[in-house]
């Protein structure tokens, strides 16, 4: 036991080593100018502003947030399912279409998915101006692609034999297709779709910080004016909203579908499709013709980015992702392991909830009150936020795990921490790491958000290039982003496969 063995357990802790360079850079960048602000920020958490006026604002802003997130969720789940079907093998088998199209659609969706909704949002806002529907579109683009991947993965589980037997009935092809995919689609919708709604709310809030509207915009404005008490009113009401909506959705059961309800669902389905299409057409033909000039300016603008500088940006983005992933992987098990008692557990849970709740830009801005902008600070922010998410999963898994081994070890006189590590965590380590591999896909994409605010990596460059209308640079940055994300996804896919 003396020498360190590389197993799943140690691999869950090793990434914490990133905190050495990270901590070093943070320490050298510390400044004391903003400590009071930070203090005020923390204290305001317990003393949010409550009066009639702000409650009305909260309600109005939440309504906007709900509208944007619900609509984008609805559209992205429906089109995600449709594109998921179009990018699943079963579709091509039934309709006898060459697999060539399958690869094209899959590739297209991978590229769309590799760019974060905030980037889409900033991009679209620059082209079309700030607009309520930009928020919906910006969320829908990557979400449709993400959802389609999830749906397609489930559809790949349909057995070839079921396909053969339905095929042998020689029914109309659409009937066969629908009958085969029905259950995987419904199950995915139930298990994943509901969770996606929460993601959609978070994305709306973040886009709000960039001016789309809703509670996110209020959060940003109150932060900018250093109105921390107001800020916390918004944050807490958002928290209440997320918790309440989450528990309501958990309660909804789709098992007892009756005739009226099914007709309602079908109607929603088709109306959403119709509306989306007509809106899309309206947008293209009616709205912003003059803005197409931007596209022509793409060819006029030139790029001032030197190759070396560009490579530095890419490297920064990669390092940023790695550092954040390190924190997101190792911090939760480390904290839970070291502070292994009930009070600490509750505190960690609350802390994790706050890290999930507060949008990353706000976390970053808060940290900036006592630290100069640096890559490490951005990494810390992103890492902490994602640690909030990974720790939720870890807690859920640990709580539902059989504790026999842990109790047996403790009764043998082995210390509580060691028993926790070897008796509880070691059994979770593998699946935890697999989830973290999936999470790091998302972290790579999210580097854009902290990059834009924290002046690091490609995210920052994107903002600079956009504000100077240097469209060639924008395209270059997007390609770089997309490539990093796609390569990251490939590597993570390999890791995930070896873990499951």
């Amino acid at each position: 036991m003396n020498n360190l063995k590389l197993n799943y357990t140690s691999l869950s802790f090793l990434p914490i080593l990133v905190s050495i360079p990270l901590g070093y850079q943070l320490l050298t960048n510390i400044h004391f100018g903003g400590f009071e602000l930070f203090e005020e920020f923390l204290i305001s958490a317990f003393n949010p502003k409550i009066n009639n006026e702000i409650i009305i604002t909260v309600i109005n802003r939440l309504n906007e947030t709900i509208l944007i997130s619900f609509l984008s969720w609805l559209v992205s789940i429906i089109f995600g399912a449709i594109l998921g079907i179009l990018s699943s093998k079963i579709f091509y088998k039934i309709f006898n279409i060459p697999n060539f199209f399958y690869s094209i659609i899959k590739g297209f969706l991978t590229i769309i998915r590799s760019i974060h909704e905030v980037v889409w949002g900033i991009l679209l806002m620059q082209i079309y101006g700030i607009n309520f529907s930009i928020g919906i579109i910006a969320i829908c683009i990557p979400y449709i692609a993400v959802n389609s991947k999830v749906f397609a993965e489930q559809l790949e589980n349909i057995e070839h034999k079921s396909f053969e037997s339905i095929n042998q009935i020689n029914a109309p092809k659409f009937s066969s297709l629908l009958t085969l995919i029905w259950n995987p689609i419904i199950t995915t919708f139930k298990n994943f779709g509901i969770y996606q709604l929460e993601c959609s709310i978070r994305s709306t809030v973040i886009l709000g910080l960039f001016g789309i509207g809703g509670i996110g915009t209020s959060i940003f404005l109150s932060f900018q004016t250093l109105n921390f008490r107001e800020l916390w009113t918004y944050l807490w009401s958002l928290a209440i909203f997320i918790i309440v909506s989450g528990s309501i959705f958990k309660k909804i059961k789709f098992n007892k579908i009756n005739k009226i309800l099914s007709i309602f669902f079908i109607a929603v389905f088709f109306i959403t499709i119709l509306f989306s299409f007509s809106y899309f057409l309206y947008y293209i033909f009616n709205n912003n013709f003059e803005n197409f000039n931007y596209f022509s300016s793409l060819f006029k603008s030139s790029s001032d980015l030197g190759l070396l500088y560009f490579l530095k940006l890419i490297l920064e983005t990669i390092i940023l992702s790695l550092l954040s992933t390190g924190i997101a992987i190792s911090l939760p098990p480390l904290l839970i392991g070291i502070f292994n008692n009930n009070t600490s557990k509750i505190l960690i849970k609350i802390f994790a909830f706050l890290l999930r709740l507060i949008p990353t830009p706000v976390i970053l801005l808060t940290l900036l009150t006592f630290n100069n902008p640096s890559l490490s600070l951005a990494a810390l922010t992103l890492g902490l936020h994602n640690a909030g998410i990974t720790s939720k999963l870890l807690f859920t898994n640990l709580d539902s795990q059989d504790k026999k081994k842990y109790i047996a070890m403790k009764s043998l006189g082995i210390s509580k921490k060691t028993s926790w590590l070897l008796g509880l965590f070691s059994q979770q380590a593998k699946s935890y790491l697999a989830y973290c591999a999936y999470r790091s896909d998302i972290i790579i994409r999210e580097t854009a958000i902290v990059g834009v605010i924290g002046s690091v990596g490609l995210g920052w460059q994107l903002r600079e290039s956009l504000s100077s209308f240097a469209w060639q640079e924008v395209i270059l940055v997007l390609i770089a982003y997309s490539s990093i994300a796609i390569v990251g996804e490939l590597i993570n896919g390999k890791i995930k496969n070896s873990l499951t």
Partner: protein
Amino acid sequence: MNNTILELKNISYKYKNNLILNKVNLKINSGEKIALLGKSGSGKTTLISVLNGTIKPTQGEVKLFNKSFDELDRKQKRKITTIWQDLRLIEDLSAEQNVNCGLLAENNFYFAIKNLLNICSFNKAHKYMQLCRLHNSIYDKKIRKLSGGQKQRVAIARSLIQGAHILLADEPFNNLDPKLITTIKNLLLENVDKNNTKKSPKTTLVSLHRLDFLNDFDKVIGIRDGKIFFNIKRTNLKQLHLDKIY
């Protein structure tokens, strides 16, 4: 009476260098009741999959109504129905929904949706399930919750409801108790039930291991190592034939 409806001409099927069907020639005439005999692994299931067009043979021709499968339209292909050895039901749908899948071919897309939403009429499905002695308490149960014999009969009901001309049944008596076996055998082989309505297809090919049932068939085919050893009238069947394939 000798009109051939399904024909295999010199069929071979190779899978990863294994010759699973070896130069099979076979004619099935309308109205024939054929028993397909052969050891486990002799190629019965493979032969049936070639007959219904699921497996494309490596060599040779399959002709349904004198046309190859590619030349047939959906309506003609529908004249064959199959009861698979491994049933191939849709596990997450209910028993009655699975039986209704047999009706997908003669109905439009709207019917498929209504079936999945559980808002279509199941009367016909129930009739066929009753014929298979399925109790009405299992009608709306998911397939994964049924017993082996119940699943077997759901698969049979799904096949019979299609009203096809040709029935290919791959060991349809699996998992059934003796009394049920007799019922199902009569159902599959008799053209007329007690109300004088036709329920089962005219032409039937059944793979089976029960030699005591052979009296109900007109013809017996013996297959071994992917080769047809005999294809004769049941009345001509001798022990000698059986010794060759078992």
